[in-house]
């Protein structure tokens, strides 16, 4: 017999409310994570409009499936994972992600130190959004979300080698953008 029951945390109460379909609790959960999830969706979507669509669909899925949340990880990670899956599904539906098995060689990527302090978040997002959909997807999953290439291959239905190859291309493109930005900035400073 349980003599003491652990008091429910705010997150647990929130989840219970959402499971019960209480609209105020759902609104609370939305308010809690909407900003972060919007940033996540903007990284995966080419435009902010599509990011909003992605987020709308993602949150509807969150509320429809929240009873399946096992509470074995923070709620934020679970919500984030749903957003990423929604992004993958939408991109697949729009045929923006063609499955390819590239194994082409890319040159050595310089591993010099990169400092992004001088860039605003909008600039960084713009750089990522300018990538081709499949590169953007692999770059997001590997560099920012922290998945390994094997996991990315399983998520995207491509081989591990293809994931690595596409990541290298995305990385090279981004590095080129950063170098061009730096060069422009330096020329601007010198001219002044």
């Amino acid at each position: 017999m349980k003599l003491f029951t652990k008091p429910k945390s705010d997150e647990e109460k929130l989840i219970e409310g959402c499971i019960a379909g209480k609209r105020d609790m759902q609104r609370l959960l939305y308010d809690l994570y909407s900003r972060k999830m919007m940033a996540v969706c903007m990284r995966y979507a080419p435009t902010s409009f599509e990011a909003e669509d992605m987020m709308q669909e993602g949150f509807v899925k969150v509320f429809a499936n929240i009873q399946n949340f096992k509470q074995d990880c923070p709620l934020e990670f679970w919500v984030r994972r749903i957003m990423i899956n929604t992004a993958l599904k939408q991109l697949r539906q729009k045929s923006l992600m063609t499955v390819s098995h590239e194994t082409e060689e890319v040159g050595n990527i310089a591993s010099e130190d990169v400092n992004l302090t001088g860039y605003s978040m909008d600039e960084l997002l713009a750089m990522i959004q300018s990538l081709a959909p499949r590169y953007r997807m692999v770059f997001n999953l590997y560099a920012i979300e922290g998945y390994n290439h094997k996991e990315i291959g399983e998520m995207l239905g491509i081989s591990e080698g293809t994931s690595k190859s596409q990541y290298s291309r995305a990385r090279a493109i981004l590095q080129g953008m950063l170098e061009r930005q730096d060069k422009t900035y330096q020329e601007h400073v010198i001219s002044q």
Partner: protein
Amino acid sequence: MSSANNHKRNSLEDEFQRRLFDAEARPAPDLWARIDHDLTVQENKDYKKRALFYRQLAAACFVLFALTGALLAYNYSDSMNQPGAQPGMAALPVTKQATAPVTVEEAMKAYATQQEESAAMAYSPKETAGTQRVARASGMRQSKGPVAAASTALNDGPQAGDYYNVSPGYSPYLGYTPMPGRSRGYVSGGFPGNGPASTQGNLFAPGTRYTQIITWESITVTFGSNTPTTKQQYPLGNRSLAAKPQSFAEMSEAHQASRQQAQQSSETAQSTLAAQQSKTVEAAMKGDSRWSLNLAYVPAVFEQNIGLPDPLAMPSSNNRNMFSIAASGPSVNASQESFQNISAAREEFEESTQPAYSYAVEAKAGFKLKEKFKLLTGIGYSESRSRSKSNFIVRQFWVKPRSNERYELSPSTFFVSSLNDGFSSDSVSVARTGDSFNTEYQYRHLTVPVGLQYEHDLSKDWFVYAAAGVAANFLLESSVKTTNPEVQSVSYTASDNDSPFRQVQFSGNGSVGVGKRISPNLTLALGPEVRNYFNTLVADPDKAAAPQGKPYTIGMNMSLNYQLSSSRK
């Protein structure tokens, strides 16, 4: 170096992760409203699925009920049509003589066949010389007439507790067994064997062991200790199975007489009962008057058939009482937003409006016009409900003429606002609420029905009916209630002059179904009923902004009818 091997994280990955992993961006302000709308639509779909399931379940139950009723009716009518059977009385089992062997040869043949079939059984009696002697001694005729098929000597014959086999439908001692499928009897107690008494032809000599034969008729024939001095005579008609016959032949005759007597008395009882019943029915029919009382309860679903206005059909912006343009409304973008909200509200209303539980009760007097037609009229009460879920409210504003100060009226539902075109406020906007709320529409009517009912008998107890009629419905109250306390609920009584609803409404109804006579005077009928109103709920549909249709209900009519008895007896 292959790119495939170049997957080590370095400063670029770390920098991007540091800057973007926990980054935040502001979503569009109306994104939650869109999500809320999606959730409402999804909930409505779930509700519709559940409602559909329950409707199908109800339909399946009804079909099952109707089929069972029809089957029962068919079954009853079949049993009534059997020759010799009386209405409402199950036919008594007729004594089956034909299957019994009529000659010794036939009996023996049947017995031999049975023996072969039951070779695997524990005991197979064989006819022995002793048996034949016993048979001769007991005075059995060897030619025509029912005789015993098997009887065995004590030594190799059946012992107490043994089974013996007989021909189907035939018992060696009782002549006939009513269950031809079962061909085994049971011998209890002793059995007259090869003793001197039996060999000398006296089967029931003193000292002979008692014999009991239990047949499937559960009749026990007991031959007690026979005393030859009694010489008791058993007058005809007073023969008992427990009596003590002097010989086997006497016993057989006694049994035959008893059977005939039982059969005669059964037939007499049957005919007497039938005569009594027909007299009762005739008396009931003759005694009934043409008047009857009828109580009906009709649970139903109600479709009010009212839509919401199309934003394109709304009054133009030149009109001062414009609907979609909130010139001096709550915000600069209110006009466009309100327009979009009207479309969304209309779509939502169409999706979420559901017929809710409604019912009608009626008390009617019936007058039999002809053999099968009945005119019914009386008084009734009906309560019709419908409900919907909404995210939108209508906000209306007035401008005070002198001070030019603007103030807001209580928000109302879009439904109520669109029942007339009297958006008399200076500006109106349709706004989205934070949380969805339920709205229930309720109409209470006092009804005066008049109808004609046709009944056709399927059997004595079952009948089918078809009914049609019209009714005048007087509106007692109409209300639109919301669960949102901020939104105004409205209620109109019969005396309200500003009620947009029709005060008197005519409707037509039709019903078919089956009925059961519970007693000669009382019947219960059940069947689907459709009721259609001849006019719209709103008194002047041309003035209403929303499209108006004619409402209808679909329900199940359950009625109890009591046939009044005639006053002259």
